[in-house]
């Protein structure tokens, strides 16, 4: 079972790394979501899998019985899924906004936050304006 998990996690990570290499943001976001899934599986395995006895305390007992499944990784994964979903939703909204405002979802084509102008200020009188030369 661990082997199967390991292979699945490996495939997910490989796919996400491939997507991270893409130039456009939606692909990178999908890569992030896949990587999140891989890590969720990793946490599940880290908590030891094997038992299929549900983590419920029987009516007469006060503690979990021996051999029940570990409930903690499930709680962790649940938290991580919720957080990951929230972050992905926010990132997606940013991407949509960038498409609307700048008409592109490729970071290199934006050049709003970085670039010569932002770095050097504006050309002083008498100095060649590099922006015009480029255009």
């Amino acid at each position: 079972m661990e082997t199967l998990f390991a292979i699945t996690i490996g495939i997910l990570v490989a796919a996400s790394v491939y997507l991270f290499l893409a130039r456009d943001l939606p692909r990178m976001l999908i890569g992030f979501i896949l990587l999140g899934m891989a890590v969720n599986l990793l946490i599940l395995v880290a908590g030891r899998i094997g038992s299929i006895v549900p983590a419920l305390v029987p009516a007469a007992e006060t503690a979990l019985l021996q051999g029940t499944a570990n409930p903690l990784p499930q709680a962790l994964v649940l938290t991580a899924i919720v957080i990951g979903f929230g972050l992905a939703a926010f990132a997606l909204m940013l991407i949509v906004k960038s498409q609307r405002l700048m008409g592109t979802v490729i970071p290199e084509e934006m050049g709003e936050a970085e670039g010569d102008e932002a770095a050097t200020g504006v050309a002083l009188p008498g100095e060649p304006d590099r922006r015009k030369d480029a255009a």
Partner: protein
Amino acid sequence: MQLLLIAPLLIPLCAAGITAIFWSRPDIQRPIGLAAACLLLGSSVALLSAAWAIGPLVGQMGGWRAPFGITIIIDVFSAIMLVITGLMAVAVAIYAMGPGAVERDKAGFQPLFHSLILGVAGAFSTGDIFNLYVWFEVMLIASFGLLVLDRTREQIDGGLRYVMLNLVGTIFFLMGVGLLYGLTGTLNLADIARLAPEIENQGALAAVGVLLLIAFGAKAAVFPIFNWLPAAYHTASMPVAAIFAALLTKVGVYAIIRVFTLIFAHDTAFFGPIIGVIAMATMVTGVFGAASHYDVRRILSFHIISQIGYMLVGIALMTPLAIAGSVFYVVHHIIVKANLFLIAGVIREEGGFFGLRRLGGLWVTKPLLGLLFLIPALSLAGLPPLSGFWGKFAVIRAGLEAEAYILAGVALSVGLLTLFSMIKIWNEAFWKAAPVAPTGTVKGDEPPATRWTRRERAASYVPIMALAALTLTIGLWTEPFAALSMAAAEGLLDRQGYIEAVLGTPQLAELTGGVE
């Protein structure tokens, strides 16, 4: 006592909730926000004096015994960080009433600002590594919102870079947490610290350490994962940039210091040189990055990176003096750097621009601003008798004592280059004559549309003066601050004390109201 322990979490949480309810009423939001920030500062000071007097304060949430529940632990180091968080919250809450306040508040600045403070305070006070992850996320999502507050093209672009890199950082953190849980079977930091030296597979533990170093390093903007910071910070509105510069990267530094003194302290031989090299590279790349820029905000952003390197020296060397130096440096840096960003906002209001080439002559028209700029600027460069000198002095002396001569030499020369950068801002913005009729517009650097009112001017100048006075105080009356840093360092190196404080002392039973 129990209530005081969670006061730094409750206060910003309530403030965020209440200001969110009064979404369209800035007149109600502002006093509430300022009051919450003052309360936070007050409760943090109370916590610091308590932690100073009786050692680490521990509370088990919900009465669940450690290591099963979530532990809140505030030792001297955490308390120092909480006090400085409160201080920054007050300063920025006042400054945010300055120019542009109306637009900011309409966009939801207040609830997001307090959520950010909540995340930061939570990260400083938790004793549970998964809980630390959750606080990181609270902080992160609030910072995403704050960064793109004005929704300009520039901000969306900068925001995307910031968001994407930080998302990957959080995944690394989660991966590290998962593997650490697999190795130790616990998430409580004290319990992990107890078990870590006994783990058979030390190689796997080192791998976890590297994963966490990448995750925290991405937050702290260390070499080579700092690119998001200069791409994003200068696009934010000035109060937001100031609080980011003050707190966000420092949460990463805090996490590195906390985790590496607790969990990986027995493996200094492996991590020491790695962190040392990272520290040097961070210092050097940051300062050279700053040298090539002419926008005040971008110069300051690059200097954040450079200064992070100094804070890592303590963890690289792991001697008491080095760690005390790091703690002192973090405190000094937060005050000085936030103040420089606040001053950058005022430079724009007074001089019209952020770009150095279009600024000039401010010394003639605004000598007070010039003086106020010189205090944090020279402190950042490490000139005596300002606070930065003592921070650098402690770090470099620790380096020489540990015979890490290259590290100490790099730290010294980077200080010199920092001075060069600060003098550049001084020469261009204050000293040189104002350029004749600056023409053309640059995205994100348009002159302010309206002149500011007296009230706005007061709101901008008061926090700057207060922080400058604090910088002078730390510089001239260093002893209590140095003693606090030493106490924090001793607490950090006393792993056994931390473990015992969390995992069972009489004090614990008392704090949890006798639930055993």
